[in-house]
């Protein structure tokens, strides 16, 4: 089943063309990676899918629902972790999870279960009872990832989930995502500029540069196609060939 379908998506910010017509699709249960350098258009794509921005051209669907026309329906199916995000500083980590769980759950029992899962996923232990304002960057990111996953969305959209974190925290975040995907069968759309991270996590990736998708495939396929040792080399070669290497 197709979870995400993106067709000739375009987005202009005033005169800046952030997306110049990209197309890709994601199947159920996949961890799909959107990889490319800073400014390539990854966040823009994810924000459109998360119903935050309206595309200038083309269309995007989540489980067959148009992200513009059926935005409320899409919001019920997804969970979005922004690239730069915070939590409410005056709440404790636990209160933040409770607040979010209540909005997604249909009963108090269900909310309790979600909070339970969230508390475990965050790995914050007793610190969950401290105010968010006392958290480090890594702790906040773990809390936010936990809140995004605990609701068991049909599609999780994570924008650079581990960027800007130290190795230990980044590793913990990647591990959480991989285990959660394996155990829960949630579909993921992840963006990253870290090629190694993507290789570790993703079943399939799309290489994006300057608002265009250059190539798509599993890390293995791509490496074979370009005769490269890792995705970093794949990307450099793909960009060097001007974007029509696959054609």
């Amino acid at each position, binding site marked *: 089943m197709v979870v995400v379908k993106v067709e000739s998506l375009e987005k202009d*910010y005033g005169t800046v063309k952030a997306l110049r017509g990209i197309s890709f699709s994601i199947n159920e249960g996949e961890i799909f990676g959107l990889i490319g350098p800073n400014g390539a258009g990854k966040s823009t794509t994810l*924000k459109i899918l*998360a*119903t*935050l*921005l*309206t595309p200038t051209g083309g269309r995007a669907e989540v489980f067959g629902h148009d992200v513009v026309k059926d935005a*409320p329906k899409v*919001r*019920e199916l*997804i*969970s*979005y*972790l*922004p690239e*730069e*995000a*915070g*939590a*409410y*500083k*005056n*709440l404790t980590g636990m*209160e933040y999870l409770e*607040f*979010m769980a*209540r*909005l*997604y759950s249909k009963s108090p029992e269900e909310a309790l279960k979600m909070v339970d899962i969230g508390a475990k996923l965050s790995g914050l232990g007793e610190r969950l009872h401290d105010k968010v304002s006392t958290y480090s960057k890594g702790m906040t990111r773990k809390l*936010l990832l936990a809140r995004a996953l605990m609701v068991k969305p049909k599609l999780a959209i994570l924008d650079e989930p581990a960027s800007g974190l130290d190795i230990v925290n980044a590793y913990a975040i990647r591990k959480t995502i991989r285990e959660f995907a394996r155990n829960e069968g949630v579909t993921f759309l992840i963006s990253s500029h870290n090629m190694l991270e993507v290789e570790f996590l993703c079943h399939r990736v799309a290489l994006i540069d300057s608002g265009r998708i250059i190539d798509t495939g599993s890390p293995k396929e791509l490496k074979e196609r370009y005769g490269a040792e890792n995705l970093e080399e794949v990307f450099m070669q793909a960009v060097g060939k001007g974007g029509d290497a696959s054609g």
Partner: protein
Amino acid sequence: MGDFWIMAKKELKNLFRDKKLIFGLVVVPLILFPVMGRAISVGMEQAQGETRVAIVNFDSGQYGEVLIKTLRMSPNVTVDVVNASSLEEALQRAVAEKQNVLVVIPQDFSSRLEKNEKATVGIYGIFTTVGAGIKESISEGRINAVIEVLSQSIARIKVERLGAENPDAVLQPIATESRSVIKGRIVDVSPSVVSGVMASQSFSIPLIVFLMVMITAQMAAGAMASEKENKTLETLLTLPVPRTKIVGAKIFGTAVMGLVAAIAYMIGMNSYMGSFNFGSSGVTLADLGLKVTPYGMVLFVAAVFLTIVFSLSLAMLLAIFAEDVQSATTVVSAVIMPLAFPAFLLMYTDVSNMPAVFKYLMLATPFTHPIIDFRNLLMGNYLPVLLSVIYLGITAAGALYTTAWLFSTEKVLTAKISWGKRKRG
């Protein structure tokens, strides 16, 4: 619990745990105002308590002694007679003894009185520190009052000696009896007392409305902008909750906080104002026949509520364009302060006294309406109040609708104007 209440609860938790906010909105008015009032009234009481007067008597006749006796018999006045041979010496003594006032009875005091000439008494207020000078001025007032009484009785005796039958009528041939006409009814209270009572209400209502509007507007803008500043907005906007409920919950949360602040300010102001109630006439608005009926109260509450909804919506609308809390508060002050200023003007004047252009400008500003409405209600004019509530309803709905609409577009994320700081690419 519905989504709205979950959101509203979060807003309230976030606001009520903000120590800075609680301090400024609740602690300051509840503690600072009464303390300020107390401090001023303590000064007043001290000044009022006792007037110590130093007197130097250079008079060769007996009237100087009469004056001293009269002063001694007057309530709240303690008289210290200074023995001195010259004015300079007397002043030096008075300063040394830390007196507030020196009264000088001249040498020709009695002889002039006897010759039916005008006699003069010198009063010197002695300022040793740069204070409010309340003591000195009250002392002067008391001495003048005593001298006035003495002067009257001496005049009375003189007029009697001249053979007048009714000396009081000769001395004060015209008397006044003042009453006031309020709402077409004669009230046996002098206009100055009525105006005093009205002044206190015309001062406090605009002040409270002005404070309420400014405070809640700042809070609303802050609540919206802090979502951007703390990077919680993007997550918030992808939650499965209608945007109208998100905006509604924010307005609700701020309004509740505003209500708490308003109550704190009213209690604080009340005890601040209450400290000055010495010698008040004890006349209330109700005594003057100026009562607000339950129907009037409902209209007034509706007017205040709608004004606050307008102000909150406008503040949030402005905050949508601001990048951080600082920019939001700056722009809200810059826009709402001038809009709320006319309300402030109403402390000193009334719309009916203004030229037509000003009058309509004032009436176009929603913030003046609660004040004008309250005055109209006191005077029993219900129609203008009803019209005003309708006008406020339209402006509030317009502002609310515009904000909710902007909030449901991507402008809420892409509009990035920063005030007071340079924008960084």
